[in-house]
């Protein structure tokens, strides 16, 4: 129920921002449409801690800040590789261990890896994540496990 | 002025992606190029909206971002299905 209410609030906020007209008629139509969308989502059984993860709270915002810096650093690294006259690339495809317990945590970790330029998730299994890295160094940095620990901290004891 | 620079960079990148889509060699290279062109188009619509001082273009960019993603996934599913069917027929 908590998830449904939160989803309703988010969707109605989206309606308000995207419409830009605030007449009583349009506001009422917004309530009807949002309620319908939430009802359909509940019928599809996607309104739970996975489809609408509100339990992550503020920790995910802090994590996004850290991830932004990581993305910038590795974007610069990949830029240097692309622009160098003889690209020094050494692609590797290996499995990186992951310590998350929930599916949601694994998905956050896998998507973070893909979002960072230079590393790319190719498949997610129960004991690890198969990653294609542009350079051996990028793979080694990933295997140090800094990102893995941070995602596990975000995931918390759900 | 700066919007023009952004638009120019986007158009050049779209052209480079078109070259890659033409060269291939695999179907996945082509899908990747088309996906990249879609992302560039989203940014292009947003930048052109600012250039022509029509911020309502942003709504179109928003919808295009969604359609581009769904389009890529749909094409990949189609290729996967066709490959599976071809393998079945060959055996």
């Amino acid at each position, binding site marked *: 129920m908590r998830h449904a209410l939160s989803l309703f609030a988010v969707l109605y906020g989206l309606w308000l921002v995207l419409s*830009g007209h605030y007449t009583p008629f349009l506001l009422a139509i917004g309530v009807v449409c949002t309620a319908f969308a939430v009802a359909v989502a509940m019928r599809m059984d996607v309104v739970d801690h996975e489809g609408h993860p509100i339990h992550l709270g503020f920790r995910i915002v802090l994590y996004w800040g850290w991830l932004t810096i990581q993305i910038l650093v590795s974007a610069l690294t990949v830029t240097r590789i692309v622009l160098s006259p003889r690209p020094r690339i050494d692609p590797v495809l290996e499995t990186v261990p992951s310590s998350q317990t929930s599916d949601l945590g694994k998905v956050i970790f896998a998507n973070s890896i893909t979002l960072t330029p230079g590393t790319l998730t190719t498949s997610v299994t129960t004991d690890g994540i198969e990653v294609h890295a542009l350079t051996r160094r990028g793979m080694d940095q990933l295997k140090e496990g800094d990102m893995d620990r941070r995602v596990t901290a975000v995931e918390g004891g759900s | 002025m700066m919007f023009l620079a952004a638009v120019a960079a986007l158009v050049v990148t779209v052209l480079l992606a078109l070259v890659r889509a033409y060269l291939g060699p695999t179907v996945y290279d082509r899908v990747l190029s088309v996906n*990249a062109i879609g992302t560039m188009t989203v940014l292009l619509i*947003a930048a052109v909206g600012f250039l022509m001082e029509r911020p309502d273009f942003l709504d179109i960019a928003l919808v295009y971002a969604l359609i581009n993603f769904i389009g890529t996934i749909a094409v990949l599913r189609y290729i996967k299905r066709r490959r599976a069917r071809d393998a079945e027929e060959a055996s």
Partner: protein
Amino acid sequence: MIVDILSWIAIGIGAAFILVGGLGLIRMPDFFTRLHATSVADTAGAGFILLGLMLQAGLSLTSFKLVLIFVFLVFTAPTAAHALAHAALLDGIRPWTRKPKDPAP
């Protein structure tokens, strides 16, 4: 005035990252490395260009729509990239490696 200059710098950096993505798409040797190159344009390039436009728009509905576009791009880009890489691997495309005698698993 300062905001104007900042937004120009952001748009300039974004345009540079976008161009790098396009160049990488042409220069890199195989499909997976090209995927890495475009992810530069998808994340850093798009982020900086939208940041620059946001600074131009100021605090308004327009800015919020730009944030929404960025959120959509950031949530969908890794999913599309993962789907592409997974499909390519399943189809038997092997990543290019430096040493041909040591093939990837």
